[in-house]
């Protein structure tokens, strides 16, 4: 059977992922690190739900409800010393379970940030007021299953896209990069996108911002694989022409960029999608990109002092990149900035996991060690690379949470403000 014949699609990589379960030696390292099974008996742990249960799913059947409680943070795969793709096995098992048992309406709605953004942006004042309205949130919890206290961001009321359409970046001779800004930036934090562009331009780049949509990650983590595939393929298609022209893609959301780099290929079984593979190899997280520039001696270091004490949390998905914590190295270049590195692993939100009524308490319990560390560090500000994590931290700690690039923007003297997002609900 040919792997290129579309009628006989054979998921080679998927077989490798499933096959990796034979490498499991039951060492329990994943169980030590799993943030979810450490706070709730509803999830028995990655080893049990992953490599062990997977043996019983040989015929494609679903054998275990508990896999739905895996948050998909991916820590198990990162810490596995034997190369077992535990989180990926779990994600696929969850999708099969959803396929067999149906997907709740809630999961079909909250996993489409692009659709929500398009609807919410023109109605921002009304939408935000509704999300802030306690009785309405209680109704939404009952009807939809979105927890009344869950951190939801405020619609900005304008899109980054509309700014990008008007913005002329760089000069014809500047080196070009492509900006993959993601839905969070587009609908909720457009100012972060502008700051990212400014930081790149400050370093001499011209920033291309082709029209682009959602990467499909929220759909994927809720088990809606077919929809997720459509979204990520469409996104790859919009980014591919720039890559063919030689540009690198710089992303500001570490979870969406991980989706492009690896997750779509591994979890959604798109290893045979040439366009996605092309794009995947050219994606860089913004901090990764800037540290690479610094290593090459090309990053501008005309940083002004920022006298502030911050706490930095590297999100699970950021750690999934395998690039260490480049934000810390960038912070080290800023005079006056005092950084407390948080070593608690997960804030609990895991994209949309912590929004769900039945998982909200778990997500908050998962995040508690991080929130405690942040409280103990008593910073003026929290820095974190993923938007949903920032919103979760902001809600739980009451502290402004910003993307690392916002601190660089200020240190470069490109603007005084360090704008956090506005999180609605649960205050």
């Amino acid at each position, binding site marked *: 059977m040919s792997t290129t014949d579309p009628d006989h699609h054979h998921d080679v990589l998927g077989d490798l992922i499933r096959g990796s379960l034979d490498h499991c030696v039951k060492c329990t*390292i994943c169980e030590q690190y799993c943030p979810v099974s450490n706070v709730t008996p509803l999830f028995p742990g990655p080893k049990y739900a992953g490599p062990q249960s997977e043996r019983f799913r040989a015929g494609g059947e679903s054998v275990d409800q508990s896999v739905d409680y895996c948050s998909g943070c991916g820590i198990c795969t*990162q810490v596995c*010393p034997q190369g077992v793709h535990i989180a990926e096995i779990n994600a696929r098992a969850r999708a099969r379970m959803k396929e067999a048992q149906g997907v709740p309406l809630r999961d079909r709605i909250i996993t489409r940030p692009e659709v929500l953004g398009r609807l919410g942006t023109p109605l921002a004042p009304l939408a935000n007021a509704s999300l802030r309205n306690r009785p309405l949130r209680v109704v939404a919890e009952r009807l939809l299953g979105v927890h009344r206290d869950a951190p939801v961001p405020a619609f900005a009321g304008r899109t980054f896209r509309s700014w990008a359409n008007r913005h002329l970046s760089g000069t014809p001779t500047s080196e070009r990069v492509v900006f993959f800004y993601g839905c969070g930036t587009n609908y909720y934090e457009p100012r972060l996108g502008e700051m990212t562009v400014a930081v790149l331009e400050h370093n001499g780049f011209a920033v291309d911002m082709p029209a682009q949509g959602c990467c499909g990650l929220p759909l994927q983590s809720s088990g809606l694989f077919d929809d997720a595939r459509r979204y990520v393929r469409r996104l790859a298609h919009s980014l591919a022409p720039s890559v063919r022209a030689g540009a690198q893609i710089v992303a500001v959301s570490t979870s969406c960029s991980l989706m492009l*780099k690896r997750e779509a290929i591994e979890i959604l079984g798109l290893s045979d999608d040439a366009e996605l593979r092309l794009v*995947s190899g050219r994606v860089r997280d913004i901090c990764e990109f800037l540290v690479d520039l610094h290593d090459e001696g090309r990053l501008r270091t005309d940083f002004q002092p920022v006298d502030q004490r911050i706490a930095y949390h590297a999100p699970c998905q950021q750690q999934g990149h395998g690039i*260490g914590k480049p934000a810390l190295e960038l912070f080290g270049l800023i005079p006056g900035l005092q950084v407390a590195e948080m*070593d608690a692993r997960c804030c609990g939100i895991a994209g949309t996991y912590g929004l769900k009524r039945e998982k909200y308490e778990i997500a908050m319990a998962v995040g508690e060690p991080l929130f405690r560390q942040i409280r103990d560090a008593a910073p003026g500000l929290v820095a974190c690379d993923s938007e949903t994590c920032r919103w979760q931290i902001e809600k739980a700690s009451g502290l402004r949470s910003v993307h690392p690039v916002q601190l660089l923007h200020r240190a470069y003297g490109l603007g005084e403000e360090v704008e956090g997002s506005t999180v609605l609900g649960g205050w």
Partner: protein
Amino acid sequence: MSGLAAGIRLAEEGAAVVVSANGAGSLQLAPGTIDLLGYASGLVADPIHEITMLAERDPGHPYAQIGAENVAAAARWLSARIADGPLSPYRYVGKAEENMLLPTALGVPRPSSLVPETMAAGDLRSASRIAVVGFRGMKDFHPSLIADNLTRASGDGVAARSLQIDPPTDLSREPGTLNLARMLDRPGTAAAVAARLAPVVHEGELIALPAVLSTADPHGAWETLQRLTGCPVCEIPTLPPSVPGLRLFNTLRTLLAQAGGRLITGARVVGVRGGPEHVDLVRVQVSGGERSYGCRWVVLATGGVASGGLELDSNWQMRETALGLHVAGLPEPGAPRFSSRYLDAHPIGRAGIAVDRDLRPLDQDGRRRWENVLVAGAALAGAEPWREKSGEGIALSSGYRAAELILEADRHVAGTPAASTVAETVA
């Protein structure tokens, strides 16, 4: 462990260090003790003395390349760092010139040199009356088995009995090692355990508990138990997950970060680039493709067969997976590789990377393969750690020695700190 030891030592001298790790490392599966040399021709009382003799007798042994004085220096260095580390006042006790005999989870005396203070009272050379106490419902820890074996194995000197108490955990959680340890992180839990112990232990008895006395404040939990029961208390290492191993791993990870080293997880070293004698770049496989790190020095600490640093295929070929170094000590094709008895010496057991006294890897002709690559840890040829009880000792001292060699070489060249990449799969 070898990679972290080398990385910390280099970073604390100002070198720019990247530790690239594929997985979380095996320290958290290990008992957390530092066993330098437990058995040579028989039970070893003074490891340093015995290592000196071993080096003369067996010039192919890693300890012969490292040197006994460097083993002792590495042990002193680690003890000092742990004592000032993030879990202080928790510290390690013992010295390289002496083996204690600590009870294992099977009740067998095990020779160890450096041990957590929370284990030291279990030294069977001085303990006489022991109450081995288990928690009801905890799997893989059997007080009666331990007590019976201790009494049998230790002759007339030791009288051990067994007890079971209720675990200090709510019943929704399995009383596994990690759950118990995390319960004991909370203030008041140690006192609750002491209250259950007090009525059942006798005055002057040594209380031997499974090694679950807190991940965050082991000194506090241990001291509370001793104070409230009036008895000496020791921990007995458990089957994985191992709480003392996790403490040691977290300590080393924190020390690396504090010294300014970068730890990159989820990155597998796949090769190097450079000239015929020097490596300039280390290539790592990460999400979305390959990255590379420039370096002046490379310490290869990717471990042996168990951690994927060495691989044996069905055609009898063994290869070193990261840099493709020559593997020495492999039995000829057709010659026996394994003995029929599991615990015997196996002909294949000493295969690995042969090095010279500067820990540089040697090719099949016994010549240095690279000038700026050093090898540390379980990848080294010539030892059988599981028979010798030398695994942590070789890992620690070779990592430490590799760092010292690099620092020494750089001192001769110039005043600039070394830039190093340490590749570590499993310590």
